[in-house]
């Protein structure tokens, strides 16, 4: 094939790719970019969300944020939830994926266990929130029933400081773990058995193999899981809300819950939009940081 023909093919290929991207671009522009621009615009106004009139108020909404009821608690709750959920999800799903990946050990029906872990991620946040709210019920919830059965005292899961934070993190991790397991297992299956075989011949212990082969080679999967879980945690609204309704105090009320409150209940759409902009910035910053750190690891081991 001569060079001219190759260049022509290349151009055609590029043009086709561009055409194929148009629908996705239109959808993204209409349903992501334009609303995002609107949210930023509203955050500089006093719009109530209903009337057509709105006045430009500059940075007033942003300046007033620290005066908001429970602002500090909300920030702590949001970061605690995001970090706690990410840590628990990644650790548990990684360990579970490792256990499920061990071929020929024990009689554990792998697919069944994998399916059981995955089912929660198919449920909507609202359903899971209500489910765990019922499970955490002080009087007849299944969690306290189990505690009482083994001779322990009932815990007021939904109204106790710190305990409620743990309760919502556990429930949220329960949903996310299944998806992470699938990604980790795909990563694990991509590691060649030859590497482990060579390491075994060289006398490497299981622990050494885990830290020197498995973990480094799983870096891309870890990156994906950490970033998607963190973003999901920052965006979570219905699940924590339906479990604890922000109680006790404002300590489980996340940023998303506050956005909803100001935009849809208090008639302060502009204020809610300012909070939404802050959330977008936090997510972008966290994702960037995680990408930088984890990509560095990928580069080292990749």
């Amino acid at each position, binding site marked *: 094939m001569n060079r001219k023909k190759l260049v022509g093919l290349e151009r055609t290929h590029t043009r086709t790719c561009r*055409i*194929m991207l148009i*629908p996705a671009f239109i959808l993204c522009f209409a349903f992501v970019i334009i609303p995002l621009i609107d949210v930023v615009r509203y955050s500089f106004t006093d719009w109530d969300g*209903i*009337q057509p009139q709105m006045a430009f108020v500059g940075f007033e909404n942003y300046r007033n944020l620290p005066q908001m009821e429970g602002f500090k608690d909300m920030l702590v709750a949001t970061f605690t939830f995001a970090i706690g959920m990410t840590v628990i999800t990644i650790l548990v799903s990684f360990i579970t994926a490792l256990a499920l990946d061990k071929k020929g050990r024990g009689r554990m029906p792998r697919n069944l266990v994998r399916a059981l872990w995955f089912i929660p991620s198919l449920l909507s946040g609202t359903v899971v929130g209500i489910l765990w709210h019922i499970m955490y*019920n002080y009087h007849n919830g299944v969690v306290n029933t189990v505690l009482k059965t083994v001779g322990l005292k009932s815990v007021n899961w939904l*109204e106790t400081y710190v305990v409620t934070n743990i309760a919502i993190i556990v429930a949220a991790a329960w949903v996310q773990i299944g998806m992470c397991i699938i990604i980790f297992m795909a990563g694990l299956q991509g590691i060649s058995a030859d590497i482990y075989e060579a390491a075994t011949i060289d006398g490497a212990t299981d622990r050494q193999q885990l830290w020197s082969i498995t973990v480094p080679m799983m870096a891309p999967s870890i990156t994906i899981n950490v970033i998607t879980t963190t973003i999901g945690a920052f965006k979570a609204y219905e699940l924590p809300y339906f479990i604890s309704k922000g109680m*006790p105090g404002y300590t489980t009320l996340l940023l998303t819950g506050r956005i909803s*409150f100001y935009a849809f209940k208090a008639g302060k759409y502009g204020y809610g939009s300012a909070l939404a902009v802050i959330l977008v910035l936090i997510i972008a910053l966290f994702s960037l940081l995680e990408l930088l750190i984890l990509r560095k690891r990928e580069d080292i081991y990749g």
Partner: protein
Amino acid sequence: MKKLLAVLLSAAMILGLAACASQPAAPAATEAATTAAATEAPAAEAEKVTLELYCVKTENLEAWQELERRFEALYPNVDIELITLEFSSGSSEFITARIAADDLPDVLQVSQGGVTSQLLDAGKIEDLKRFKAADSIPQVYKDLLTYSDGTLFGLAQGAAFATMYYNMDILEKAGWTTIPTNWDELIQCCKDVKEKTDAAPIVTSGQHGTLLYFTPELIAAHVCGLGQNEYEEQFRAGKFDWTAYPEIEQRLEEIQPYFITGAASMVEDDIATMMADGAAAMALAGNWTAASVCDATAEAAGGMDKVKASLPPFNKAGEATWASVAPEDGFGITKDAKRSPAEQEALETFYEWLYLPENFRCIQNSSGSVPVLTTFTDDQIVLPEPIVPVVAPMNAAPSILMGFNIWTTEYNDAAKTVLLDWISGNATAKQVVDTMWEAEQKYPKNK
């Protein structure tokens, strides 16, 4: 081949998008076709009309469905679409979203403050003074659902008041053969129940704001020595100082230990569940759930004769008992310039029909509300047995408006949060009064 496939796929996607984009035009085309068909059809055939009715989902849902069936049978050309959402499941978000879409339900449940105020400010609700139905509602309830600009925006569906329900079986085990009649007796009764039985003294629902406010507002009514409407006036002016009355704090401290553990996270339905389980001796709830709470209490107590109800006895011995009252949310009509004359006519017919006593009794009797229609005859009202003796004292009692009638959304948020913390033992009574007073000054625009 690849090129052809790519072009075909792109064309398919663009066509798909185009098809999506052209969807909104479809109803207009259909409408035009329908209009054309209607012109050709015999004049006697009435235009098919769909009316949307939105109400908060409560235990009277079946009554609403019954009314829907009856009206549609009477007017076959009108289709009533009933939209119900639970109070805690985004009902205000639903209305806000429909406002944004300029697609409000034709008839909707309205209340004081909140989204209703925003609707009124935006001029989206009709003034109901011209409707005959308004003549059958007592002026006091019309006043409560009249906006500051004079618009009568809703007709009340009943009168709500705070009610204390008693499981006499548990009270008897605690040594009480009669119900407590004042604050000191109530506290003593709670103490006895806690010490002598396995049940918790009082159950209430923290997640139902109205029920949560009963305690502080009734305490305020009984200890501040204010006259009728004085608390409301001071509160609206941002001058009701919760910290100026030490007895409010003292009473909050006294009663807190007697609420059932977990009350803060309970929803309204949990009250009936706890009473049915015999887990609590008394329930501080609304009269609007009288049917379910009384049935549940009777189940645990061994019969309806073991169920009693009264106004919450927060009064001092020998002094009057105050009632915490409110018109239960009313129903209003939205303004819509796009509504056709036939739709408007059907809407007005439905609204007048709804408030006829023979129809409205379905709603009235399904919840145990105190009737507000002056046109009701005695035989049309069926109240749960234990509630009957409470109606007369309620009507005669001095009354304080339920919190949600005057508390704004942001005040409500601050007050509710600290009250939930107090009821679950995480905040002191002092923190409650301090926060409520601070919030009252911080959010002064109380309606």
